[in-house]
Every structure is written in C-alpha cells, then in structure tokens.
C-alpha cells in the first residue's frame, strides 16, 4: 500500500519535472528562432541603406566607378543568396566592399562633410552594430539551447521530444577567416 503511494508520488514528480523541462526547452528553441530572424531583419536593413549611400557618393566621387560598382554588385549577390553558407559569404564580401568604399571616400573631404553623408554614415555604423548584436544574441541563445539539450537530466527530455543542438552563426571554413577575395 505504502509502496503504491510512494510510486505514484514519484511518477507525479517525474511528470511535473518533465513538463517544466519541456516548456523550458521550447522557449529556448523559440528564442533561437527569434534570434535568427533578427539577424535577417538587420541584414535587410543594411541592404536597404546601400543604394542611398552609393547615390550620395556618386555625386562626389563620380570617377571611382569601380569601387561603387563593386558595392552594388556585392549587394545584389547578398540579396539573392539563399542557403546559409552563401549568405555568410555574400555578407562578408559586402562588408569588405563597403570598407574599401569608405577608405576611398577619405580622399574626398567634401563628401565627408556632406550632411546627408554624415547621417548615412551614422546609420551604417548603427546597422553594423545591430548586425553584430543580432549575431551575438543568436549565438548566446544557441549556446543556452545547446547546453540545455546536452546536460544530463534535461538531455533525457530533449531526446524524447527531438530537440537537437544548433550550429552557431560563424564562418564554416577556417580559411575564409582571412580577408575574403571579392570575386564575382
């Protein structure tokens, strides 16, 4: 009789624990998804800023057609990219073209003093920061999910309901960590 009571209490306790663990894992997984979409939002914001930037720059540095065209092409590639690997590669290329554009713009003091350009530069800085923070948030949430899925008691529940570890948002190939070549 006593054993029955003890057993049923243990089963209830287990069920309650399993339920709370499952709920925790679900919210972690949703956080990861949220983080991922955040990155997309910020990347899109960057894509939308670039045409404005190129137009403003064209007014002052019309001779630098090369640099400007590279930026536009890189942006198009980034917008069209679909799978994760292509996306990461395209975004890195875009960053490096923007960087070279800014470096060339140093030679045009009129461009730097232009009010519109100052505003755009602030927006660009902000966008780069936002992308960085979005990636950081995503990686942090992925970290929490991975830890929860793999540590002992919770791993049991995770295995039962099919929660898996997720990859971090990082460069896949170590070689690509060098400054990427801008190739089309």
């Amino acid at each position, binding site marked *: 009789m006593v054993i029955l009571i003890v057993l049923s209490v243990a089963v209830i306790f287990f069920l309650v624990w399993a339920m709370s663990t499952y709920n925790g894992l679900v*919210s972690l997984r*949703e*956080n990861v998804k*949220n*983080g991922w979409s*955040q990155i997309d939002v*910020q990347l899109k914001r960057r894509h939308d800023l670039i045409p404005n930037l190129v137009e403003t720059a064209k007014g002052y540095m019309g001779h630098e057609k090369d640099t400007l065209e590279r930026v536009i092409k890189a942006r198009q590639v980034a917008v069209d990219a679909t799978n994760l690997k292509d996306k990461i590669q395209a975004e890195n290329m875009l960053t490096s073209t923007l960087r070279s554009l800014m470096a060339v713009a140093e030679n045009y003091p009129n461009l730097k003093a232009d009010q519109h350009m*100052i*505003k755009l530069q*602030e*927006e660009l*800085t*902000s966008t780069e*920061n*936002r992308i960085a*923070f*979005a990636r*950081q*948030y995503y990686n942090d*949430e992925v970290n929490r999910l991975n830890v929860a899925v793999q540590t002992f008691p919770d791993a049991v529940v995770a295995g039962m309901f099919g929660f898996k570890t997720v990859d971090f948002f990082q460069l896949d190939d170590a070689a690509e960590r060098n400054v990427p070549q801008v190739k089309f």
Partner: protein
Amino acid sequence: MPYSFTQIEKDKTSLLRSVFTFLVLFYFASFLFIYWVSINLIFLQQDDLRSAYHSHSLNIFEILVTLLIAFAVGALHWLFSTNALVDKIVALLKARDLDSANADHAKFRNILDEVSVATGGIAVRGVVIPTMGMNAFAVADFESTPVIGVTQGLLMRLTRSQLEAVVAHEAAHVAQGDCLLATVTSSLFGVFNTVLQGFGQTVSGAFLSSDSGGGRKGAHRDVGNYFQLIRFFPSAFIGIVILIFVYFFIAFATMVSYLFRMFISREREFRADAVAVRLTRDPLSLAEALYIMAHRWRGAGAPWEVLDTIFIMNPVYGTLDEEEGWGADLFATHPPVKKRIDILLNIAHGEEDNLKEVMKKFNEQFKDQSLLSPNLEYKWFLLNKDQWAGPLTLLEIAQLNWFTPQTTVKRFGSEIMVAACDDKTLADLLRTKGITDVQKPYCPRCQRALDQTLYEGINILICVGCRGSLLNEDQIGLVLYRHNVTFAPRIVKMAKVIETEQKLSGGALSIWPCPSDIHCPKCRNIKLPMGRRLFNVYYHVEIDKCGSCGAVWFDRDELEILQCLSESAQNA
C-alpha cells in the same frame, strides 16, 4: 535571465499580483491591529467597571469587514499610484521626447535600438533631460513602454561606446524586472513619505505654536488648554489616541518603503553592470563612463528622494552610497562607485591609469562648455582669497574644492556680489552636493538672523539689533578699498584715540588671539570659538576672527573705525 519579450510580460503579471497582495495585506494587518487596540484600550473603558476585564477577541465578521476595507483602500492606493506612472515621472523630471532632426537624439535612438537588438527585442522609449549634468535613468510601469532617459550633458559628451554601455546598463534593469519593481514601489510608498512630513508639521504646529511673542510659554499654554479640554470631554482623549495611531501607521509605512529599497539594493546594481557587460561585451567602456560620471556633476535633481534608485548614479553627492558595511548595504541605493569600477576593470584586465588618461582627455576636450551650448550655461566669477577666478561654468564650479556656500560670487555681466548660497542656481548646485544648511547666519550676540545689506557696494551681513557685521576675509579688503561712507564724529574721535595708541605702542603689540565668547556664525564650527584679536599690527581694532573659515565679526562701530583708520593712513 529574462531577455525575451514574452518572458518580461509574464514576469510583469506575477509581479503585479505579488506587490498588490502585499499592499492589501499590509493595510489589512495595520487596520486590524488598530481596530483591535482601539476596541481593547478605548471603548472598553466605557464599560461597567464591576465586570471583569476581558480582552475582546475578533470574530470572523470583523475580520472580513476589515479585509474588505483594506482591499478597497489598497485598490484605490494602487490605482492612484500606478496609473500612467511613467508619464508622471517623465514629466516630473522635465524630460522630452526625441527629436529626429537632432543628430544627437538620432544617435541616441540608434543606440537604444542596438541595445534592444542585443537583448532580443525589448521595446524601449527614449527621452532626454535637458540638463548639463551627466546621468541616466530607466522607469517602467505596468501598461506603458519602459522609458530610458539620459541627460543632455551625457549625450553630448560620451563617446558612442560609452553611451552604449550606459544604455545597456539601463536596459539590463528593464530586462531584469527591477526597473518595474523600483518604479512602482517608490511611487506606492513614496506617498507615505510626503504624508508623514506634512503630518509631522501639522501636529507640531498644533502643539508647539511658535509665535514670536510667547515662545516656549505659548506651547505650554496650548498643551495645557488641550488637557483642560480632555478633563471635561473624555472622548477627546480618543481623538488624540487615534491621531497617535495614524502617525505610527504612517511611520511604519515609511519603514516598509525603506525595506523595499533594501530589496532594490546594491546587488541589483552590480547585476545590472554585469548584464550590461554581457550585452555589449565591452566592460572598459562602462568603466570609463562611470569614472567620468563620478568626476563630473551628476545633478539631474530627482525631486522625490525615493526616485534616486532609478538613476545609474546617485544624483546627490556624499550619501550613504560610498560606505561599506552591513548598515550601508541595507539602506544605500547604489554601490560605491570605486567598487563598481574595480570590478569592471578586473573583467577588462584594465588599469585605473587608462581611466585617468581618458578623464584627462575628456577635461581637455570639454574645457570651454560654451562652445557646445551657449544658451544653456551661465557663468560666474568667484572670489578665491583675493583673486577673482572665472568666468566659470556651473560644471567647473562643481569641481572646485574651495567652493562653499559663503564664497563671494559675481554673475558674468553684473557687478553685484553675493554669497554663493544666495544665488539661486548655485544654491541648487550646493544642494546637489549634499550641503543642506545653505542658510543665513545668525548674530552671535542677539541670536537673530543676519540681514544682507549693501555696504560700500558689497553685500555684507549686518545685525539690525546690535549693528554688528560679519564679513569674509576677502570682503574686508574690498570695503577698505572704497571710500564712499562718511563717518559720524564719534567714530572719528575713537579712531583718533586708537591712532594715538598705535603710535605710542610702536607696533610692538602682540596680535595673538585669545578665545572669544562667540562662535563663528558662518561656518558654525562649534568646537572652535572665534579668536578675539587686533585686526593687524597697523590697525589696533579689536575684532573676532574665525580660525576655521576666516570670517570676521565686527561689533558695533569696529568696522567703521577700521575704515577711518585706513583712510587717514592713506591720506597721510
């Protein structure tokens, strides 16, 4: 760590329930206690004294009614305090919404959005307090979007990464939920503070009427009257008892508000610092920002003292914050700045010398504030011993270590000299520095307040009772310099007598002071009485000079005699 939006919303509901329950229970317990004590102490006195005294135990009906009343009172209090709280506080602090045309505001909005992305998307509204002090705050209530505000001074002077660190700290408070707790509890229990003050004043006014004629006698008379009243009408006694109970209730409520402050304690500030570092991954910037804010004027000036908790750094200087120990841990709202910076430097593997470098560059960059905001800054000249320093801005004045409420100041563009405590803006500055008795001095002979008079173009303090005057060291030189006043014949006569004595003594007289019988009315240094001495070897006028602040007390005629002597010496 509840970063996500849904988590914060969920926490809000549970917080709402628990704080409201606590409030109702608090009222319930207090009302029950008051009721029970009143029943037992007061109303039973009217009973037939022959029956045995038994304490009246409360039946279920009384308890339920009290609970109902407590619930009603609690609900009213709650609605009154938390309704549109964020808007109230923002208006109280005179903060303004962001203007997208302003580059600084646009930068601030961007920083807010960046930090919001880092936290996973909490919605935040930004405001700016138009003051040149450097501080930041966060408030939240149950319905509105949380608000993070910075001062104009902070926005203009910190670099982008430092601003981001400060905003991340405030966002951490919002995300952790203690912003909501702090705002709501300050509002709920802050009202008791003001009621208590008002109550105390009314009661003491009733019993200790300070009419100028009666003084102490008046008070005794009033209390005596009241006791006469009780002899004839015993029920008046009930009134006084209930009054005492209400007073203790409110005092108890104020204690509870302090207990809640304990909740919103130093630990939460440390945790917010840690979360800010986690959000920005940049501990050095936060250390720099805190260091800069600690060394410059933080006055945003919270009008209620309970609002101190919402700021990143206490807007009032020299409070319990800088102490260690369990007493300070209980009642201080912020941790000591040095400890916060040390912890951050530890994480950043940085040195304090880096911070000192940053501070030096900062001071060089913002030496002349008028370049940045010509219409926000007044300037003053300050008299330091004999030299006029200035023109100085409010911030620079706040930095000076020789600035006291009695420093002589002159507004830029005006020739009128006043003591710093009499200039409204500087008096506010002094108050933010924690100097509370920015008061007028009292005559050491007659015990009445000294009045300011313009004498020889300089504002000095004079007692209209005994014609004694109080001057700063620097003011004496100025008075002696001007020769506008003609002296009465008796002054000239006395001056002649002293001149003769000076000649005869040949300057060999000792001018060492002996202790005077009065204390300095200016610095009110009770440990050190003023020194009675001759003015100097040339002018043998007896004066009282304070050893700690240098102020000089001239009894009747002494100042005029001194002037007379000085003029005749110059004419000779």
